[in-house]
Each structure stands twice: as structure tokens, then as C-alpha cells.
């Protein structure tokens, strides 16, 4: 029997607000333990939460960008459970009335667009972190993360393969990054994912028993763990075994999932509306205002790049993949309208520099090693034969971090291309005269020595000679010698 796998994903995305969701503490990552804490986020007696309005704005952004309905009034609820990293003994979250419902995420799979519907997006606070093995047998608690705002984004079970799950997750992360509301860093845990996986006989309508997989710290882990789990479930079912509804942990080293807890031992969270907080009211004006401030979203931008700039789909994909890169690209082509050439420089050279300098780890690069205007100018200089493409590469390297324009560098270093015929002819004649042996070889039919002459000429002109002209003039000169042998 053939089995179909059913996959739904639950994502927790840390929001890039300055402060925590219910107090004024910084939400910055990587500070000394318990540095970012106050009586509110440490759950002292008598404290009360005050909702950070920016969190709501970010949730509306995410909701609008994923085609959700934004609730005019939604409720913050308490999720009650005991754990040392949860200072109040409850997490403030949303339960019955989340802020966003419906909507979908579009992703590309095998060249086709597919949609995964969203069940809901809600806001909640993150918990702290328990640290084991750092202090003898004692466990330590770091509450820096307690109260950092999160979006929980829950998809419908609309994915059918691990690859689809990966593609959905990448599209979702890209969307949040585009909105500048989450940095999408899976390793630091600012973008976390749990997967719900079940299998059913092909053609069956009913869902099979669902298993939740946790501890997925990379895209690879998501795809691999789902692959493993689907196979495990298929094997169990086809051998006549019975699956139990449970939570399983992904073991990255052994590449397998392991049972963590069954449904019977699942918590009863005793959700109820938090009496310390008023309903979140979002009026139409506010939503309109947020909508007006949304950036152009990645798939729309990509389509526009293909249509308006006649870019190949591959280039458009790469150039629209990050909002900062797309902005860079469009700033550059506004200075010099050669999208294809500028795109090539970005994809080939700028991406390499971003990677080398780890700039790609930033969510939005505002200060580029080469400003977009300067790159545009460089392309223009090449296009107008002011410098050769090869010199262009040198100029690009010189521009890196120097803040000098291409024009300035070319002028200062006297790199302008030699394109007048007479200067090139002089250089050509000199090289021919100095190398009679090679001339003879050429005359006897050895075309390869042509390259030798070009190299010598470029060397004599410090690489500035217009290579096309060098080719032309050199060929003419050498031919002249063939037809008019020296007397």
C-alpha cells in the first residue's frame, strides 16, 4: 500500500523589538545571564504586565503579509505550568481568540507555487533558559529570554513531503526577515520549529495518528527528522503496528526521533483569559497604517524584477531573496540602468564579500562595503569602455571599504583604458619587434602564440589597453607581416 505523509509546522519567531513584551527590559541576545531582568519579567509578587504595542504591530505585519484576518479584539491568556525557567508559573500567550487567523504562505516547490494555509498567528512571551552542567550538579536559570516577544505561527497540515516543509519554512522565514520583525536565526533559537507528522493510506480522507517532533535547530534537521519520522510511521503501520499520539525529540547525532512524552502525560495548561491585561483592540485605522508601511513582499518583488528588468528567474530569485539586496539592486540600477550587468556584479562579487565578511548574518545591511551608487558607476565605466572588465575587478576590490568611487579610483591610479589606436599600435609594434621568434612561429601557423602577444601587450600597458582593440590591431599587424614578409 502507498502511504501519504501529512505535515504541519508550528513556528516560534522571536520578534525584533527593543524591549520585552510586558516590561521595559532589553530583549538583546547574548548578554550576561540575568542582566536583562526586572521584577516584572522575573515574576516577583505584585508585578503586572503592560503590553508592548510594537509586538502587536509586528503581529499585524506578519498577519497582513500572510493574508490573515486580523481580529479587532483578541485575548491574552495564561498558560499554566511549572518550570524553573517560567518565573510566574504561567506563560502569557493567546488561546481562544488569537490576533491573526486564516491566511497562507506561498512557496515554490519543483518550479511550481504551492500554498500552505495558516491556522493562526498569535503573540506570546518566551520563557527563560535552564542551564545544566555548568555548576556542578546544580541547574542554573537565566531569565534574559523570559518575556522576549514571540509570534507563534501554526500551519494547517498542508505539506506532503519533507522538501515542502523545508520550502514552506524558508518562505516563512524570508517573509519575516523581509518585514524586519525576526532575524530568522535558527541556531540562536530566534526562529524555532516543531513539526506535526502523520501518515495515511493514499486516497484516504481520515488523518492518521499525529506525532509532534521537537528540537529542530536547522532546516536540515526539519527535513531529515520528518523524513525519518514518515518512514518510521509507514513501517509501523504497514507491519500492522499501532502509532501513539506523542511528542518525539530529534536526535541530531543519531539522526532519529525518540519518544519524549505521550498524550496521556501531556500537560493540562488550564488556559484562561489573563485578568491583568485588557483585550488587544486593533481598529481599522491602525491596520491600514501598518498595511501602508509594509514593504513589497519577496514573491511580488521577484515577479516584478523578471518583468520590469528582463532578468532571468534565477537572477531575480537571488536578487530579491533579501530585502537589503533587492533595495541595493534597485538603488544601483536607478543610477545606471543595466540590471543584468549590475545583477551579475551583486550575485558574483558582492555576495562573496558579504559571505567573507559575515555580513549575510545581519538581517538588513544598511552600510555596504561598496555603496550601490559606486557599483553602478563601475558598471557604467566598463560599459563605456573607460576601463576593461578586468581592471573593473581591481577597481571593485579597491572600492571595498575605501568609500572612494570607481571614477576616483580610476583617475587616481591612472587606470583608464587605452583605447586610441595609435598608442595601441605603438605597443603592438614594439612587442612584435622584440619577439621575432614568436612572430615566426605565428607565421608558420601556430595560432597559440597570439595569446602570448596579447599578454605581452597588456603587460606593457599595465593592463590598461582595450583588449578588443589590442586583438584587432595585433591581428592586423601580424597578418600584414604574413602577406608582406620582411625584406
Amino acid at each position, binding site marked *: 500500500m502507498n502511504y501519504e505523509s501529512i505535515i504541519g509546522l508550528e513556528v516560534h519567531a522571536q520578534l525584533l523589538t527593543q524591549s520585552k513584551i510586558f516590561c521595559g527590559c532589553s530583549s538583546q541576545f547574548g548578554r550576561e545571564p540575568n542582566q536583562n531582568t526586572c*521584577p516584572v519579567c*522575573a*515574576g*516577583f*509578587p*505584585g*508585578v*503586572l*504586565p*503592560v*503590553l508592548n504595542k510594537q509586538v502587536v504591530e509586528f503581529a499585524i505585519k506578519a498577519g497582513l503579509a500572510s493574508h490573515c484576518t486580523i481580529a479587532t479584539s483578541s485575548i491574552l491568556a*495564561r498558560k*499554566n505550568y*511549572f518550570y*524553573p525557567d517560567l*518565573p*510566574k*508559573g*504561567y506563560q502569557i500567550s493567546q488561546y481562544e481568540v488569537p490576533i491573526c487567523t486564516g491566511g497562507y504562505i506561498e512557496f515554490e516547490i519543483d518550479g511550481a507555487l504551492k500554498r500552505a494555509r495558516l491556522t493562526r498567528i498569535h503573540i506570546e512571551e518566551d520563557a527563560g533558559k535552564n542551564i545544566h552542567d555548568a555548576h556542578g550538579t546544580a*541547574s542554573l*536559570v537565566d531569565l534574559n529570554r523570559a518575556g522576549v516577544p514571540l509570534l507563534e505561527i501554526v500551519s494547517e497540515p498542508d505539506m506532503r513531503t519533507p522538501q515542502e516543509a523545508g520550502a514552506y519554512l524558508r518562505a516563512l522565514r524570508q517573509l519575516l526577515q523581509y518585514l524586519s520583525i525576526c532575524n530568522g536565526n535558527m541556531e540562536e533559537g530566534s526562529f524555532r520549529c516543531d513539526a506535526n507528522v502523520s501518515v495515511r493510506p493514499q486516497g484516504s480522507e481520515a488523518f492518521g495518528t499525529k506525532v509532534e517532533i521537537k528540537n529542530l535547530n536547522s532546516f536540515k534537521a526539519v527535513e531529515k527528522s520528518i523524513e525519518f519520522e514518515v518512514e518510521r510511521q509507514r513501517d509501523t503501520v504497514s507491519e500492522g503496528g499501532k502509532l501513539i499520539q506523542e511528542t518525539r525529540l530529534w536526535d541530531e547525532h543519531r539522526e532519529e526521533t525518540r519518544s519524549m512524552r505521550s498524550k496521556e502525560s501531556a500537560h*493540562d495548561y*488550564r*488556559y*484562561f483569559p*489573563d*485578568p*491583568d*491585561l*485588557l483585550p488587544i483592540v486593533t481598529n481599522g485605522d491602525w491596520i491600514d497604517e501598518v498595511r501602508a508601511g509594509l514593504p513589497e513582499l519577496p514573491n511580488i518583488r521577484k515577479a516584478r524584477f523578471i518583468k520590469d528588468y528582463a532578468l532571468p528567474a534565477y537572477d531575480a530569485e537571488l536578487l530579491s531573496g533579501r530585502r537589503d539586496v533587492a533595495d541595493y539592486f534597485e538603488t544601483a540600477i536607478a543610477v545606471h540602468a543595466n540590471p543584468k550587468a549590475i545583477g551579475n556584479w551583486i550575485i558574483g562579487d558582492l555576495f562573496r564579500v558579504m559571505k567573507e565578511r559575515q555580513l549575510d548574518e545581519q538581517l538588513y545591511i544598511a552600510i555596504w562595503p561598496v555603496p550601490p551608487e559606486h557599483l553602478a558607476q563601475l558598471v557604467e565605466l566598463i560599459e563605456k569602455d573607460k576601463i576593461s572588465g578586468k581592471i573593473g575587478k581591481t577597481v571593485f576590490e579597491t572600492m571595498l571599504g575605501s568609500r572612494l568611487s570607481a571614477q576616483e579610483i580610476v583617475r587616481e591610479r591612472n587606470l583608464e583604458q587605452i583605447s586610441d589606436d595609435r598608442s595601441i599600435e605603438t605597443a603592438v609594434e614594439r612587442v612584435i619587434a622584440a619577439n621575432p621568434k614568436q612572430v615566426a612561429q605565428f607565421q608558420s601557423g601556430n595560432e597559440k602564440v597570439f595569446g602570448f602577444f596579447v599578454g605581452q601587450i597588456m603587460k606593457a600597458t599595465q593592463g590598461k589597453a582595450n583588449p578588443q582593440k589590442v586583438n584587432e590591431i595585433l591581428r592586423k599587424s601580424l597578418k600584414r607581416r604574413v602577406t608582406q614578409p620582411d625584406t
Partner: protein
Amino acid sequence: MSLVQLTLHEAAEKLRKAEFTAVELAEAVYERIAETEPRVGAYLTLAHDKALEDAARADEMLKQNRRGPLLGIPLAIKDNFLTKDLRTTCASKILSDFIPPFDATVISKIRSAGAVIIGKTNLDEFAMGSSAENSAFFPTHNPWNLERIPGGSSGGSAAAVAADECTAALGTDTGGSIRQPAACCGVVGLKPTYGRVSRYGIVAFASSMDQVGPITKDVRDSALLLEVIAGHDPADSTSVNSTVPAYSDMLAGDINRVRIGVPKEYFVSGVAVEVGDAVRKAIGELEKQGAMIEDISLPYTEYAVAVYYVVATAEASSNLARYDGMRYGYRANARDLLNTYTLSRAEGFGAEVKRRIMLGTYVLSAGYYDAYYLKAQKVRSLIKQDFEAAFRRCDVIATPTAPTTAFRLGEKIKDPLQMYLSDVCTISINLAGLPALSLPCGFDRDGLPIGMQLIGKHFDEATILRVAHSYEQSTPWHRLKPKLQD
């Protein structure tokens, strides 16, 4: 008259006239405490040194003719208000050594108004109870009869005011915890509208009903203290952003044509005959003064206690989850995480607190939520609607504050249900979020004070204060003092 017997407004005026100093007043209070406290047991913690420093500072300011509404006034604070550097226990073993790192908003307000904090008063643990017997430390005795309870949960504050161990006090009221002890101790207790006074820094019991209010020797003091503590607080999302009237300027004036509703459901068999009679007589006095009496009905009253013990315990079960032995408070010596939780809480909380945590946990549990919590919230809406309908026909509702006068220590402690019924007259008001005040309206044959409750419309504390003040002007009750004899 001795200094300690003065009301807040009398003491303030005499301090301004330099008839005595704030230090003299504070010292007089501590002398009184030394004399009577062994019999009353109103205070858990005294702040003697700091209080005298604050009093000396108040004297400096008085000399410079600086004004502060509470300048040099000795106040007692219920021990569930966070006071910076001053132990705050909630009368619980679990917080017995807790020193708060900040002041509650209300505490900041009274401090900047010049108040001198005398100490922290006893209460039922976490404000759960009606007799102050649920304190983990010791019970408080009613100054009118030391074998009787002072009421609760703000029993320590009410007893301290009645015994002249302070000039005025602050309490909290979730189901009657200011009004019922005020009635038991023959003083004035006001629970403001929910949202009128900030809850920030008050140890939470039931967040949707907790409210801070004054316990005072007369109605004018209540108005004066409310003026200081009321107002919007950005740190409390449920506090309401509306201007605070000058309540003490609105006391004068007659109560002609004020419509006073008398709900029949509050004068039934559970209410002691003497209590019902005294309250009816007091209503008669109001009528004499020009008020119009209306018979009204609040049909959902009978469900109030049940609704309250679902909603309040549900919220409490969650609010008290933070006392886990991890970051502060009592921590049991246990080998692993689970035992640290269970033992810390088993040893740290008293029986009534544990009962309510279990009840609240139960009503929120999967499968029971709809039948209990959700149903209770629906009935709560009906109780609110009861009042809305009633207030279309009247401006103030008058009822007994408690069904009986102060009962004997130990009398109801083994019978939680009987104890819960002590709040049968006050609980609906918290469910509806309304303001209500209790003031003395007579004594029973045992010489125990009887309280009348005046309930107002949302944010209309001014009217109930004016009606109460008018009544007080023509009656002697608030001026009578307990003899404080064994």
C-alpha cells in the same frame, strides 16, 4: 483627647498649626502600640526607626510651610502591599522573609504625600479569609471584644484603626476584605471602583477583583486618603485613565432627593435580626435627611458566593504559581525539582490557601472549564446586569456589610463554607467592580459594631462618600471607642 485618637483630618490640621509635631504623633502611636498591641496583635512588622526618620522629615517640611495631604500622618499598611526594604509577608510562611525591591504604586503615592508608615498589618494569608485567623503567624483580636475576630482579610488594618494604633490604614478588598473588617471593628472602610486605584505592587489574589482602599476613623478621612491613592497608573493596564475628583470637597451638601435602593435579597434569614434592624434604622435616618428610598431587587445575589469562589480561586491558583521556591521566598530542602516544588508549596502555604489553589486548579481543568469557570463568568455578567438595572432606579444601594457582627475566634475556622458566607453581602460588589463603603451604624447587644454598606455606581465614589458623611454627621457611632479590656 489623646493624639492617637485624632482622625486624619484633625491630626493634619493640628500638625499644620504646629500644636504638636509629626515625631510626637508617631511616638504617641508607638506608645499606644506598646500598650495595646499585646492584646490586639494587629501588626506583623513595625517600621519604628524609619517611621521616626520620616516623621522628622515631615516636621522639617511642615516648618517650611510645605504642604502634603498626608504630611506627618501615621498610617498602617496591610502586609500585602510591597514596601521597599520593609518585609512583606502576606502573612504567609512562603514569604516570611521577603524584602521587596520596590514600592507598590500606592505606597509611592502616600510616601510622596508625606505619610509615615508605622508598620505592616496582619491579614488572612494572601488575603484569603474573613477573620484574619488564616495568618501564618498569629490571629488578630477585635478591639471591641478580644475574643472576637476583627474580620478579614484586612483584619490587622481595621483593628489597628479601631485600637488607635495608627491614624488611618490601607487595606485590599477582593470579596469584602476592607468592608467586612471595617464593619466588625466599627470603622469606615471603602472599596473603590475596580480600576480606580493601581494594583501594581499589591500581591495578587484575584486580579479581576482586587482593589486597594482606605480604612479610617471617619468618612472625611476616607475621602482624603482616596484622593491620594486614586488615579491612573501606566504600570497597571486595568487602572482607568480618568481624573480623580476632590472627594473631600464634595462631602458637604445635603442628600436631598438622592435615591437609595434597598435590595430585598440582602435582608433575608441569614442576616442577624439586630444587624438588619440597625441597617433599616440607618436607612430611615437617611430618609429623614431627604433621601428617597426605593425597594429594589438584585435577583442573582444568591449565586454570588458560588461565582466568586470559582472566579477568585481560578485566578488565585494561577497568581500563586510563582511561589515555587526558585527565586525568592520559602524553599524546602528537597533532592529534585518536583520535590522542591511540592514540598516548598506544601510547607509554605497554609490550609485555606491550599484549598483555594486546589479549587481554582480544578475549575480551570480540561473538561471542567466550561461547567465551572465559563459558567461562573456568564453568571458574573448577569450579576453586573442586576446592578446596572438597579442603578437605573437609584443612585446608591444600602445593605448590611456583613450578615452578623464579629464572631468568636475559632468559631468558623473549621467550617470553610460558613466562613465564606461572611462575605455574602460584599462579594457581588467585587464581581461587578462597583465602589462600596462600610460605615458604623450601631451596636448589637454584645456591644459589637454593626456596619452599613453603601454601594455606588462605577466611579461614583463621591456620592456614597457624601451620603455616608451626611449620616455620620447625625450619628455618634464613629466617635465611640473600644475599652480594650480582656
